[in-house]
């Protein structure tokens, strides 16, 4: 980490390996809901191996930005590329932007492992079934292979003994660890986290952060929306501070947290102490 700090100019967004291939690229993204402009021109580059944290107060557009990357929200304008492939857009007959090819979107989505604030495990499937659902039915992985990989992942997140349990019978922390394992099971290029610990009781936050930290340590590409400032500071290569749909400040966490340049970030950090 110290090597990285010296390698990156203080006012430039950080990157773990500066010339690694670009994993996710967002250019001049705008998103409005009707009259409400939520994202007003945001760009981001995440290189392979990067952990990019997105911070900002509630309502600043963090979730919307993240959801535009896998087209859960359709951007009003701007460009999104994953693994060098740009998501092609067109306009429908009302002039609204829509994906030119939903198949392309579906294919790209299988390389983005999304983890939701409220877990969103499938309630009619056991933990193991949740993990093999997408590999078997979308990615066409042979079932035996999918099960083998799923069991290894469950062991890794400490849920080996829960594989035949339905999600409703797990604690929040266990559900979120299962949801992270479900995301890993598709062998994604990039992991997307939307406040993965915000719905958890405080005593369950640690077990989930530990799993995410392990992923950061093994240099997985991750884009992480979080309220856990200490955690963001420790694991991120790059931090983006969103304010009212714009990047107010971005850079290497060490720099940003030590001496924020904008008054807003200063206030925000003070309020989260």
């Amino acid at each position, binding site marked *: 980490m110290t090597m990285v700090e010296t390698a990156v100019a203080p006012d430039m967004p950080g990157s773990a390996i500066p010339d690694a291939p670009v994993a996710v690229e967002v250019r001049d993204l705008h998103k409005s809901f009707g009259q409400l402009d939520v994202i007003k021109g945001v760009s981001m580059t995440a290189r392979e191996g990067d952990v990019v944290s997105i911070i900002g107060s509630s309502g600043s557009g963090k979730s919307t930005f993240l959801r535009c990357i*896998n087209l*859960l929200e359709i951007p009003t304008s701007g460009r999104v590329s994953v693994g060098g492939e740009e998501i092609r857009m067109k306009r429908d007959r009302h002039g609204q932007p829509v994906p030119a090819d*939903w198949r392309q*979107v*579906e*294919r*790209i*989505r*299988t390389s*983005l492992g*999304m983890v*939701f604030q*409220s*877990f*969103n*495990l*499938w*309630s*009619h*499937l*056991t933990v193991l079934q949740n993990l093999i*659902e*997408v590999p078997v*039915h*979308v990615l066409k992985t042979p079932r035996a292979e999918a099960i083998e990989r799923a069991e290894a992942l469950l062991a890794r997140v400490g849920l080996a003994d829960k594989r035949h349990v*339905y*999600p*409703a*019978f797990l604690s929040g922390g266990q559900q979120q660890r299962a949801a992270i394992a479900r995301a890993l099971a*598709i062998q994604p290029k990039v992991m997307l986290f939307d406040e993965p610990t915000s719905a958890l009781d405080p005593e369950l936050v640690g077990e989930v952060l530990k799993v995410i930290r392990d992923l950061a340590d093994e240099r997985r590409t991750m884009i992480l929306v979080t309220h856990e400032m200490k955690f963001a500071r420790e694991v991120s290569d790059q931090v983006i501070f969103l304010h009212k749909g714009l990047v107010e400040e971005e850079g290497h966490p060490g720099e940003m947290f030590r001496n924020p340049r904008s008054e807003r970030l200063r206030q925000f950090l003070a309020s989260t102490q």
Partner: protein
Amino acid sequence: MDEILALLALEPPGWGGNLLRGLVSSLEIAFGAYFLGLVIGIGGACGKLWGGETTKAVLDLYTTIVRAVPELVLILILYFAGTDLINLILDYFGREPIDISGLVAGIAVLGVVQGAYSTEVVRGAIQTIPAGQIEAARAYGMSPWLRLRRIILPAMLPFAIPGLGNLWLNATKDTAILAVVGFAELTLETRQAAGSTKRYFLFYIAAGLLYLMVTLVSTYVIGRIEARVRRGLPRHG
């Protein structure tokens, strides 16, 4: 007592065989109509939830009419108007009129009625699924069809089973209405047996017991199915 057993004997001159054949016909229609209704219901629910303006308007009209008009009237309309319409169409294309089999007509007519109620049950159940689960399916690259088949339909089942169970019980009883169009189901067979022997009380009690038996078996089976599909839900709520 001997006389009663003789009247209910399976072989003629006993009428038991006729009653059982009527029961089998009733169950055949009920099964057919129920599954036709279920298919219509799933399609109708999807149309109401995700269809365009026109689709929604047509489906609203369909479910409103079926629920507003008494079933007997509706079945008479569908049965006679339906067969007339088909023969009219055949005539238009220069074909001979056909005699539509009572079984097919019965299933079609009751199925259309069942479909309207199924549409509402399935739609309500789908709306009860936590939205995040469907969103997760989208986020993981499932196509709309895969989402429906693998996530939405199985996840809505626990919420739909009570309503769908009632619809099955309705389907078994609604078959009796087909007696008015001369279909030889249980009620019509019973009427014939009772009319020929003048033992009205005996035969209607016998038929009533058969219907009760169907309901009891159905209730048991529905209970088992419900327990099975609710495995993933917490015990309360």
